[in-house]
């Protein structure tokens, strides 16, 4: 492990960063595992073979859009609708990669192209959090990605065989794990009343749009409302203030 990041940050060698990344992602592996198993199980019930399930998890690596695609999976396969829905559900990643790009100054261009293939919500959130206090290295990023990616692909493969084990995940509250995870992530970004205003705007907008417009537009609408609120509340002398997330051990 002797890449350029070690030269850029002599006090924190690449190997330490990689291990720090693995340590940071560890709790989320326990969250991603059951969700991956759930995905594999539902996909198998839709008639996908274990190979197809693993291929989808490996090539797409975006849980939300994979569940949405499953919902539409039928014969004959509506491939264009599925592809467009995937694009729509994942449009938020444009904002995420835009927001993360300035924090990847220590990445080489090829490293960035590889790294952003794996830019799942959780990877992005933890990378932004890391960038606040330590600066983000490619080694740390890959420390997050490798275990998380392997867990997602392998757990969906396991789910493909479990078949009927989780016939009703809602009865044991497993479907709520996803929501609970995002609630915890929101709380880690809390930084006073401004955050409250942003959350109120995006939450209300998302709920309204979700109730009135079909599809995944509510995520983009809620994000836009939150961004507009933050822009309106910004004071010119205040733009250097950084949010300070806590929690998320």
């Amino acid at each position: 492990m002797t890449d350029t990041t070690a030269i850029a940050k002599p006090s924190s060698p690449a190997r330490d960063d990689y291990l720090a990344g693995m340590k940071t992602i560890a709790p989320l592996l326990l969250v991603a595992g059951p969700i991956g198993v759930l995905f594999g199980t539902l996909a198998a019930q839709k008639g996908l073979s274990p190979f197809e399930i693993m291929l989808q998890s490996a090539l797409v690596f975006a849980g939300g859009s994979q569940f949405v695609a499953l919902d539409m999976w039928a014969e004959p396969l509506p491939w264009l609708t599925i592809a467009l829905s995937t694009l729509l559900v994942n449009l938020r990643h444009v904002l995420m990669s835009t927001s993360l790009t300035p924090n990847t100054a220590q990445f080489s261009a090829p490293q960035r192209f590889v790294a952003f293939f794996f830019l799942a919500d959780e990877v992005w959130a933890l990378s932004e959090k890391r960038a606040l206090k330590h600066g983000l290295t490619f080694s740390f990023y890959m420390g997050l990605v490798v275990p998380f990616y392997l867990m997602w692909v392998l757990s969906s493969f396991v789910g493909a065989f479990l078949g009927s084990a989780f016939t009703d995940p809602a009865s044991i509250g497993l479907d709520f794990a996803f929501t609970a995870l995002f609630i915890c992530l929101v709380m880690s970004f809390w930084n006073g009343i401004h955050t409250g205003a942003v959350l109120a705007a995006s939450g209300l907008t998302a709920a309204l749009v979700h109730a009135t417009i079909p599809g995944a537009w509510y995520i983009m609408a809620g994000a836009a409302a939150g961004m507009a609120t933050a822009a309106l509340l910004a004071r010119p002398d205040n733009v250097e203030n950084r949010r300070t997330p806590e929690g998320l051990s």
Partner: protein
Amino acid sequence: MMEELFATDVMSLWTIFLMGLSTYVTRIAGVYVLRYVTLSGRMEEALKAVPPAIFMSIIAPVAFMTGPAETISAALTAVVAMRAPLLPSICVGVICVAFLRQVI
């Protein structure tokens, strides 16, 4: 057994490929956005608000519009998350929602 394991067809492969391509396009697009746009202070504030705003948007339909079990569990999870680490907080939310769905 092996044939079932690897069963697939052209349309499924094509659909999965397009899903992967769509996702990668959204993930790499941000690298280029900033090359053509210069950020003002206001835009930077807006960009910083993206993470919590997106998380809130994903949460909102489940937390506010599904039922009392989900709303109460979401509120409890938020309160617990202020003090407790990630995994215990998620467990509290999941157990709470499972319990309330039986009771309500």
